[in-house]
């Protein structure tokens, strides 16, 4: 199954965006983003802390709905999902 991963702002600069990823059933949000982010060490450390957990400021979305960081490790992704990971917003 295929999932689309979108990074924004600094995360996009480091890791790219609109990444189509083939994943196996049962893959969890956190493990998917960990795998993608590890392709660029600077991108990884921008998103994850030294314990491998999301930095507290990182914002996660699945299909336009926010996912609590505490829930991401047990949130599965499904075929066609759009996953978004971004830093704090600064519009206005």
């Amino acid at each position, binding site marked *: 199954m295929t999932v689309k991963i*979108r990074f*924004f*702002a*600094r995360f*996009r600069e480091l890791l790219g965006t609109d990444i189509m990823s083939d994943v196996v059933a049962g893959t969890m949000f956190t493990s998917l983003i960990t795998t993608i982010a590890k392709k660029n060490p600077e991108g990884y450390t921008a998103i994850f802390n030294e314990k491998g957990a*999301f*930095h*507290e*400021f*990182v*914002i*996660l*979305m699945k299909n*336009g*709905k*926010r*996912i*609590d*960081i*505490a*829930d991401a490790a047990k949130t599965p992704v499904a075929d066609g999902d759009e996953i*978004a990971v*971004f*830093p*704090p*917003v*600064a*519009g*206005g």
Partner: protein
Amino acid sequence: MISIQTNDVDIGALIIAAKKHGTGAVVVFDGVVRDDNITEMELEAYEDVATQELEKIARDATEQFRLLHVDIIHRIGRLAVGENILIIVVSAGHRPEAYAGSRYIIEKIKKGVPIWKKELTKDGGRWVPGEHGHGKGHR
């Protein structure tokens, strides 16, 4: 009109359109690119989600402050110093509701709508730090 777009808008035309029957006050917020020793500002949005969130903010403000009209236009792309970034036009029967509704909208945008700003300088660029809610889903 709720829009995320590259083009500027005619604020005068928005004011005219905002004067619905019963209007006693129109408040315009115009956020502009400040000259903080930058060359330009680059704005980026998660457009689909940001538009949906702006629409929800407009609905909530309309209900809460009995607004008669709401426009929110947030620009993206590269903007020069002095250009408009965000235009909010609200109308209401009386000024307290118009001012409060406008303030509600800008604060909600600052807090949660997925839009980012990068200040471009002669030496490169820097992302404007945003507010954050410690990774909590707050919708």
